[in-house]
């Protein structure tokens, strides 16, 4: 759980301005969904919070401290693809997260520590429903199961902030719905701060406690890259308490269909 403060954030590549003077504060335990057209800087924004890219100007603070300029265990990530290691089994993938934090030179843990770590990994796998697949390699898993594994691997490292980059974009609608309820449940239980990028407006509304829309506020038709994107809508979805979320769950199927169509038209 962590608070993120962003001041006057700019990002540009040469003369191509991607983000322009962005100011934002994200509270402890918020679930922020970010939507917006392609190429409006959502992913760039996420990469900057991840530490993969540096801001051109401005600052990002986490709990009042300036962000480290490289990825760290403070921020977990689930990408749309390639998030798990193909050469490790399901259990190996989760165990790796624990081994990395302890075995700095040997790179593997042994004996009692390993036993304890295997146990913790299995508990986490059970939580995301992958116990039966623990000895399989990722290539044998379906897309949904791979994303479950990626989520499990990210969460066992106990990040304060969880970043999701279109995590369900490549999944079938049914599996996507399962994954959404899993993420919502984990967010509630672990009290994480979550930032999720999505193309699916309905998903953004359903999952988030807050919805941000990224878009360009000014466009120069002669130089479309002159102005960057900013936050054009900032909707607090706090009215969606636990009870009302459950209500929405029941209407979800119908709802998401309509919203999908809308999102497509947008």
């Amino acid at each position: 759980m962590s608070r993120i403060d962003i001041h006057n954030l700019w990002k540009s590549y040469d003369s191509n301005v991607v983000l322009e003077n962005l100011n934002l504060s994200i509270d402890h335990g918020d679930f922020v969904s970010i939507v917006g057209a392609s190429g409006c800087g959502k992913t760039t924004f996420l990469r900057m919070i991840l530490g993969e890219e540096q801001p051109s100007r401005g600052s990002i603070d986490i709990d009042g401290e300036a962000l480290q300029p490289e990825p760290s265990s403070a921020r977990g990530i689930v990408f749309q693809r390639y998030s798990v290691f193909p050469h490790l089994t399901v259990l190996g993938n989760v165990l790796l997260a624990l081994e990395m934090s302890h075995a700095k030179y040997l790179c593997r843990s042994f004996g009692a520590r390993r036993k304890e770590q295997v146990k913790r990994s299995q508990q986490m796998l059970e939580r995301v429903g992958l116990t039966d697949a623990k000895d399989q390699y990722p290539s044998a898993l379906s897309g949904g199961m791979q994303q479950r594994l990626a989520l499990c691997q990210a969460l066992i490292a106990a990040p304060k902030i969880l970043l999701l980059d279109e995590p369900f974009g490549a999944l079938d609608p049914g599996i996507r719905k399962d994954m959404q309820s899993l993420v919502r449940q984990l967010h509630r239980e672990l009290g994480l701060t979550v930032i999720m990028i999505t193309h699916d407006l309905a998903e953004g509304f359903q999952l988030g406690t807050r919805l941000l829309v990224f878009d360009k506020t000014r466009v120069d038709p002669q130089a479309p890259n002159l102005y960057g994107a900013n936050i054009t809508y900032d909707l607090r979805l706090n009215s969606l308490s636990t009870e009302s979320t459950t209500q929405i769950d029941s209407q979800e199927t119908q709802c998401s269909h309509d919203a999908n169509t809308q999102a497509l038209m947008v």
Partner: protein
Amino acid sequence: MRIINRRPASRVANFSIALLPFVVLIVLYAVFSDIRLTANPDDKLLPGVSSFVDAVQRMAFTPSKRTGEFLLWVDTLASLQRLAIGMSISALLGLWLGVLNGLIPWVAAGGSPFVRVLSMIPPMAVLPILFITFGLGELSKYVLIVFGTAPFIARDIEQRVRELPPEQLIKAQTLDANTWQIIVRVVLPQVLPRLVDAVRLSLGAAWLFLIAAEAIASTEGLGYRIFLVRRYLAMDVILPYVMWITLLAFAVDYLFRRMTSWLFPWYGTSK
């Protein structure tokens, strides 16, 4: 039906077609050998089957009159040992150079162009330098094999490391991995099967360098023997030796292929 859509129906048909070029080659050889031998029974260019049997008998199963050794086995052992030592050094060197060049920008800035230039130097052209520097013994043969194959392996591994999805490296960093851990747990295990491939593919070149080095300066070895008996036009020895070398190369290749699927069960299924 279009030609590209026609294929041999059964495994038997497939196998027979695979055998066909070999059969044609053998028949052609037999015919021409026969023509030459009827004209001149002492012809050495295309000896008959009985000469091959005699030669193999002499080289492989009779102790040499001069040294008392079974020459074919001595030669085979010497050559395989040189190949194994040379390729092991090559693989280790290529692996580490490749991984560091592929993963660490500061190393790549200096190392990558250097390895690229190194790989452009024709190894046979530096063979005299190796003989002058390292003498005519075993060392210069190892160095020639390493010089000829390590840059290729290093470049291949470097490329494979660069092809790892950046998401994986980011993910490892969010799991608090340091550079060493990323190399040991993420990069090395994923490039090892590629290393086996790269070594397998450079074995052909390695044989070339080995035989060349043996031909010029050696006292035993498969390449040495072929070039030695060339002086007597001993085709009855050369041809069985060439077939034996081919068989060895084929067997090593097959072993390496099996090794990949056996050691790295996850490999090849992830795409």
